[in-house]
């Protein structure tokens, strides 16, 4: 489904006289359809960098990212034009960041509904029902549905973030520490939701700080040094 060959990313800092910082290098792995690859390694090893390169938030510098897309067939995510990357983000690749980054002044329910409306073409009522159900499973009380997530606690924000990312059922999901700010109970709910999504055929690549957790969810682990 997706295979990474010899991926490297270096940041050139012009304000420090062109200083180069290597974030990751020589990263290679392959993930087959419907499986879960965990990325492990110490802080600063470049795990998040790899995910961001896959999502084009960072421009990969070297290497190839072969992805079998439903939209375009096999493509190299490292060199695909911007517009095509946007299209893949709209249709099949989801990303869960460590922190919620959403448009301000949009209610929690709207935040979760928006990709369902745009990507799945659901009717508003149906999207509202699904988004509400998802948020309730994640133990966000209905009285918070029309509040702005910016006012939520860290754990609540993260749960809204996860609901937004998985609600539209992406084909490939990139997870950057999705359970880091959650208590055990919420983390277990999130893992349950991820398992359901996988049962429907989604492929996932994820970073978990907790090694035990990683061992339970991942089929395979790639160590980034």
């Amino acid at each position, binding site marked *: 489904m997706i295979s990474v060959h010899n991926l490297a990313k270096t*940041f*050139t*800092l*012009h*304000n420090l006289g062109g200083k180069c910082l290597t974030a990751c290098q020589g990263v290679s792995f392959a993930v087959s359809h419907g499986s879960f690859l965990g990325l492990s390694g110490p802080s600063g090893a470049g795990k998040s960098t790899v995910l*961001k390169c896959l999502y*084009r*938030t*960072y*421009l990969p510098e070297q290497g190839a990212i072969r992805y079998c897309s439903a939209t375009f067939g096999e493509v190299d995510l490292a060199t695909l034009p*911007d*517009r095509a*990357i*946007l299209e893949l983000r709209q249709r099949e690749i989801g990303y869960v960041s460590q922190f919620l980054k959403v*448009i*301000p*002044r949009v209610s929690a329910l709207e935040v979760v509904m928006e990709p369902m409306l745009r990507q799945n073409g659901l009717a508003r009522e149906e999207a509202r029902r699904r988004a509400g159900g998802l948020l309730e499973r994640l133990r966000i009380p209905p009285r918070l549905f029309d509040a702005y997530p910016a006012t939520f606690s860290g754990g609540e924000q993260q749960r809204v973030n996860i609901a937004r990312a998985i609600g539209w059922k992406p084909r490939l999901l990139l997870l950057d520490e999705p359970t880091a700010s959650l208590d055990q109970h919420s983390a277990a709910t999130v893992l349950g939701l991820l398992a359901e999504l996988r049962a429907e055929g989604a492929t996932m690549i994820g970073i978990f700080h907790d090694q035990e957790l990683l061992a339970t969810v991942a089929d395979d682990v790639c160590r980034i040094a």
Partner: protein
Amino acid sequence: MEPLIRVRGLGKQFGPGCPRCLALTGPEADTNLCPACGTVVACHGIHFDLYPGEALGVVGESGSGKSTLVRLLHFEWPASCGTMEIHRSALAGLGLDDAGGEGGAYSGNLLACNDFRKRQLRHLLMGIVYQNPHLGLRMGISAGGNIAERLLGAGWRNIARMRARAAELLDKTEVPVSRMDEPPANFSGGMQQRVQIAKALSNNPLLLFLDEVTTGLDLSVQARVLDLIRNLSHEFKLALLVVSHDLGVINLLCQRTMVMKAGRVVESGLTDQILQDPQHRYSQLLVASQL
């Protein structure tokens, strides 16, 4: 999906010009003023595609050529070089099918059309919102009259229908309809900006230019104007060209962004990539300078 407009090699110079103008200006020289002949190279070599329904951001400091770019595309100033072509499907049914070119999916170079044709294209396809409401509105005639003027340009003739349309748009842009017969001079800055937006949308444009629309407004008014633009651009399926020096505005509205410096585009990419992994020296400075 094919681009709505294609812009290639667009440039504008003020001054006599000399063979060294281009070599002596630009981001490396850190100026747009040619030291040999005094020509200002306001912008040069601009190349981009704008897709239907997409918002493309243009960021850069004052004098980087952002507003010049908009004025060229809106036919306010003649371009020194370059082309702009529009997808023929956008012209269908507007009586503009003969916009030049040799058949195929795209029109000829719109920048080379005569003034009459340019005015038609502008009235039927484009809208613009300026930083300064004085540029977009006649301050002495009523808000409704401002919108009617635009509708007249687009071929409307029935007064009652024009009034109804003006009321509808003012309502959408949250301007009290009861005040539509007052001149914008009586309105606050945020309200004037919303009347400008109503006027720009009145002819159902496909292409909307936003030139620093929130600069100078206080924060809560900025937020309302931005939310309004975001909602209306979805509703009207507009292609937006958003010029701003504020990365927050660009981040909120645009999926893709171009960074300009001294009249040239130094970098273009997805907005989140420009913000988190800027490549060019100047883009890095811009991102690092954000409050």
